[in-house]
């Protein structure tokens, strides 16, 4: 068994060195394809991450009708708390709202002089459960809130939520459509390069078949070659992406860097990196199977 493995690896590396140029081309093309896919994965990962951070801040504000008696507030709180999707809520009286506005205006709070707190509507600040913090689910909660007659208006940063959800969705969709196309391209390229390798060794393969070498003995080195090409291609893609990630971040203007300091621009997690490497290997392997099915028939 050890002899077989040693011999197989020796033959694989001899094949690869003997067809160095075509192997380098294949590895390069796999690297470029995987880099495109990984870049989209990284973008989607960071946007999702950012969205998750932002999602935690998503809340619904339900403004009470003016003149709603304070005796009804407790019952309203209890009723709202029971709605599906509501995690926590806080009653904001007109006085609290005035304090908040003063705090926000800071030195310019004198602008509020002469304005009575009663002008401002009371409201409920509603925090939603995690699974309800998206454009579809949030609408369900809003629809329930709208049925409560004491509420005048419901606000939830509707446009932002919808735009962001659509953006993430498009990015994920692009990532997978592109991933699918690149997948086909990689299998196609790997299989064609391996066909070239196999063709250049046709004489040797014929002699092997002539001598009674088993199909596995002939094919396995080509499968290993596909695996190695995929692994090296995937590895190079990860390396380039890492350099790109580091380089871009350090070359940004200081103002953008300062802004980004609040939003962490992360590199792909180790698990995703391993999946990309495995993906490269699987694609390379699949390409070599396609190639061997075409040109390694026993004759």
């Amino acid at each position: 068994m050890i002899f077989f493995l040693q011999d197989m690896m020796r033959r694989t590396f001899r094949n690869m060195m003997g067809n160095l140029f075509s192997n380098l081309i294949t590895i390069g093309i796999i690297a470029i394809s995987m880099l495109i896919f990984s870049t989209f994965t990284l973008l989607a990962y960071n946007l999702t991450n950012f969205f998750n951070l932002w999602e935690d801040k998503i809340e619904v504000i339900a403004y009470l009708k003016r003149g709603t008696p304070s005796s009804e507030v407790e019952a309203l709180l209890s009723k709202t708390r029971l709605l599906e999707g509501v995690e926590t809520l806080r009653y904001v009286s007109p006085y609290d709202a005035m304090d908040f506005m003063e705090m926000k205006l800071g030195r310019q709070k004198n602008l509020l002089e002469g304005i009575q707190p009663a002008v401002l509507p009371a409201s409920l600040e509603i925090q939603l459960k995690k699974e309800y913090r998206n454009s579809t689910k949030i609408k369900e909660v809003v629809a329930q809130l709208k049925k409560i007659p004491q509420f005048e208006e419901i606000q939830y940063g509707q446009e932002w939520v919808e735009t962001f959800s659509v953006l993430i969705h498009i990015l994920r969709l692009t990532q997978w459509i592109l991933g699918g196309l690149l997948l086909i391209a990689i299998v196609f390229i790997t299989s064609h390069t391996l066909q070239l390798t196999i063709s250049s060794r046709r004489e040797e393969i014929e002699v092997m078949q002539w001598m009674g070498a088993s199909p596995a003995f002939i094919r396995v080195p080509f499968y290993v070659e596909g695996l190695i090409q995929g692994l090296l291609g995937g590895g190079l893609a990860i390396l380039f992406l890492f350099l790109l990630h580091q380089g871009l971040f350090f070359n940004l203007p200081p103002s953008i860097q300062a802004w980004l300091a609040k939003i962490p621009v992360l590199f792909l997690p180790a698990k995703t990196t391993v999946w990309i490497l495995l993906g490269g290997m699987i694609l390379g392997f699949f390409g070599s199977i396609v190639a061997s099915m075409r040109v390694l028939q026993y004759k």
Partner: protein
Amino acid sequence: MIEAIIQMQHVFKTYPSQISALSDVTLEIFPGEFTFIAGPSGSGKSTLLRILYCSEKPTSGEVIVHGMHITQPGFKKIYQLRQAMGIVSQDFKLLKDRTVTENITFALEVTGHPREEAKWKALEILRHLGLEERESDSIFSLSAGEQQRVAIARALVNSPSLLLADEPTGNLDAKMTLRVMDILTDLHQKGSTIVFATQFTGLIKRYSYRVIQILNGQILDGRKADTNKIHQG
């Protein structure tokens, strides 16, 4: 009753250009037989051998070699069949970019022999065929006759139980032909079955082995084996 090592039943082979290479060939070759397939160039000898080592499929008919029904649809054990046989073809099928020894060790290594053993066996067979001084030379530097001897050495190195040789002495001089025939006779006396296709009647007459005459793809004579001449190893 001895079971035939090769059985061909009503075998026909017609190429797409409608050229009929074999027509209703039926024969049996028994273990330990030395059989000449004799006939002029283009008579169907090579096609018959290529069918026996599964390099070609017959258009119809049944072929059994070593107990394997090689004409059955989906027959996948070609490599097992070839491991038990030695093949010498007219085009030698040598690896031009390798040395004489490497060509022979390669044949052993692909069937799982350790490298050291392969090298030792290769040097021994090269010595038998008078090629010991050319062991490190590349195939390119050899004459046609020497290349033919390397091809014979490669076919014999595994001590096959069945040797299929297509004009193995075609490029050899008289002296070397006799040397090769001595080696084949020795192999035959050890129990191997040898099928030797040739167009040289002089060579056939020199030995009292079974002769199957073939002309225009049809067997004229020699269908039946003389069981008295079968060696049992």
